[in-house]
């Protein structure tokens, strides 16, 4: 999924290293003190004497740098590159604040830094980008099976906006747990959407898993409660609760969700979101985090050529791990996910 961001970040490091390279060359030429280099001055209508002085100092520094074999990039020189990078990040669905945080982090890492000129500037820059990404994406790691050791049955609530893929994800999770010899019971707590119970029923049948269901219009919390009870009786390892999709702006549905949480007391609350959701995903997730709390994410539909920026923003803003990504329509299309996955895919 990260092809787009990868390309853009590559452009960024390459063009910046070119720029650094040309500056090294320029700096070696003794500049005319009356006439500082032109290119940096684009966009400025008029030069104040102070600016020229600053520029002259900059040039002098660079000469020194060239002599000692290192080069320094000033904030001003970095700015157009970082502005462009920010736009590219936005184009890759990275949310605005996260894009700003990332460029700011890069600026801190780069501005005034001595770049050893003998070294490959490009790889130096890449290293810096990796460090910046790593820093903004730091979260707690969650290992599902370690967590499951804690309690039996382990209750997992799957929630998210309409059409994000909750029911399909539950089927995949069931399959994933079964493959590791764990027994899961499914709870059809989406009693609102047409066809939702039948949908989960079909999956339960195919996967040979037990399904707890009520009728449409029943209290979802009651379904969840019954499922937990059934799991206790049958000594199942996990309960997977499917609840109705909801928009975070709907107060009543948020209350309903809170009730499910109160009654079923889930050990892990997973938010399922679409990888190609734009800037809104963060807002949705933040509201849910505030109202009921989120422990981890699963991003679905990454096989649609989603740009992946969503993942970066989620990690940065909510500091919650992404457990899995959905990669297709089969039961096996659920892949464990780590930040390293992003880093390797973007920086390759």
């Amino acid at each position: 999924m990260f092809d787009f961001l990868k390309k853009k970040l590559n452009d960024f490091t390459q063009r910046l290293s070119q720029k650094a390279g040309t500056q090294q060359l320029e700096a070696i030429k003794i500049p005319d003190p009356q006439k500082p280099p032109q290119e940096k001055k684009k966009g400025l209508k008029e030069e104040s004497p102070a600016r020229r002085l600053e520029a002259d100092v900059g040039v002098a520094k660079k000469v020194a740098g060239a002599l000692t074999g290192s080069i320094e990039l000033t904030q001003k020189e970095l700015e157009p590159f970082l502005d462009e990078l920010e736009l590219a990040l936005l184009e890759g669905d990275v949310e605005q604040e996260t894009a700003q945080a990332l460029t700011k982090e890069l600026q801190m890492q780069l501005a005034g830094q001595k770049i050893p000129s003998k070294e490959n500037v490009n790889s130096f820059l890449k290293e810096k980008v990796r460090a910046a990404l790593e820093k903004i994406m730091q979260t707690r790691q969650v290992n599902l099976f370690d967590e499951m050791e804690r309690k039996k049955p382990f209750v997992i609530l799957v929630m998210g906006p309409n059409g994000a893929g909750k029911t399909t994800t539950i089927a995949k999770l069931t399959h994933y747990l079964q493959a590791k010899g764990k027994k899961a019971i499914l709870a059809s707590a989406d009693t609102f959407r047409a066809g939702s119970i039948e949908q989960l029923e079909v999956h339960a049948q195919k996967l040979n898993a037990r399904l707890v269901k009520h009728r449409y219009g029943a209290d979802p919390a009651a379904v969840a409660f019954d499922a937990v009870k059934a799991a206790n009786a049958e000594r199942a390892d996990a309960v997977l609760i499917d609840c109705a999709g909801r928009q975070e702006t709907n107060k009543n549905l948020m209350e309903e969700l809170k009730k499910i949480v109160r009654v079923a007391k889930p050990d892990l609350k997973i938010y399922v979101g679409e990888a190609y959701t734009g800037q809104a995903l963060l807002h949705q997730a933040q509201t849910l985090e505030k109202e009921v709390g989120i422990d981890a994410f699963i991003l679905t539909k990454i096989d649609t050529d989603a740009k992946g920026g969503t993942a970066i923003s989620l990690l940065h803003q909510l500091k919650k791990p992404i457990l899995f990504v959905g990669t297709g329509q089969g039961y096996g299309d659920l892949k464990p996910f780590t930040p390293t996955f992003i880093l390797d895919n973007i920086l390759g």
Partner: protein
Amino acid sequence: MSLGERLRKAMEAVQNLRVVDKDAIKEIVKEIQRALISADVEVNLVLELSRRIEREAFKEDLPKGLTRREHLATITYEYLAELLGGTPKIPENPQRILLVGLFGSGKSTAIGKLANYYKKRGLKIGVIAGDTFRAGAVDQLKQVTAKVEGTEFFSTPNEKNAAKVIRAGLQELEKKKVNLILCDSAGRSALDEELVKEIKELHNAFKPHHTWLVLGADIGQLAKRQAQAFHEAVGVNGVIITRTDGSAKGGGALAACHTTNAPVYFLGTGEKVSDLEEFDAPRFLGKIMGYGDLQSLLEKARELEEENETDLEEMLEHGFNLHVFYEQLKAARKMGPLNKVAEMMGLNMQIPKEQLEIGEEKLDHYKHIMDSMTKKEKLNPDLITRSRIERISRGSGRTEEEVRELLKHYKQLAKVYDKFKNINLEKMQSAKGMQKLMQGFQKRKKKKLRLK
């Protein structure tokens, strides 16, 4: 801040400019850029838009009778409306509509809503369950269409080939003399070769007059590529944007339509079959920017009047009292959540959130409390003193706090109500400058049409 609020702020900044100079324009353009990008509008489109605004801002010959400031505001508004796709004409007799889209974008739900919409316009509807892949899809569609009385539903259990289902369905529904056939399809990525092949087959079998793409309002920058790919595969000539009741405003989807030239016909605005709204860019823009959408509010009020339930305009004529307050709360629940009403009135930024979220139970309590009031008290709530509150509380079995809360709530809403009244009766005097401009813009547009 939402897209609307930000755009509104930017436009207000234009209005309040003392001098129109380069720096000021740059600042405003930057703000508009940020607003659009955070609403997922595609970056290239945003850049194009800002270039045009900057160019126009310094044009030598301004249209007659407009100051540079007014000109700037008008063109910005005009461009924004154009970017969002203008006002499309919704097909009255579409005959066959195929819905396509990504997974979980809301196709089946949209079919129910379309059936409801066209049934109200006198058509007999048939629905074919063309999603043979996803578990539960057929059941879902069946339950959705059952909500629209008189709709013919066709599916072939256990048939996995969608094209076959469709051919059989066409024959069957033709016999039943339906005027409009809606066909569902499985969710897919249009960048997946296999799935594209399948949708082409499906399209061939159904031979739709209209192929509409269903997009979620929350889709990001991917919208454009997917829309293009769907368009290349089956020729998309209309768009429905769903889930606009969330915080996402559909910027990505809207802009995607702009690039594929397919008009947005409808917005999905909620979970019920009646939650479908005709799309109109200037109106949409006015609404999200908080300038009010009186037209659709009045339309809705009229619909309710026909049902003899509430008379909004009559309520406006008499003053605001507790009766009106209660009726208003009740009516608002019928017209959809109060915040939707407020949004249409352009007041959503001015009403505290808690007031918009009054629950069923609260409303009952309010009724009990009001039943314990005298007529005089209800008509003039200012009469209610501490001792009266005590009496009302005892009489209704609610606490004194709750009685006070009701009164406080009433007073707050009375203020808002005054604003609404002014807006309605004095032709939007409160937002003078901008409103005038928007009206002027609409007049100009009409003139243009007349010239043609």
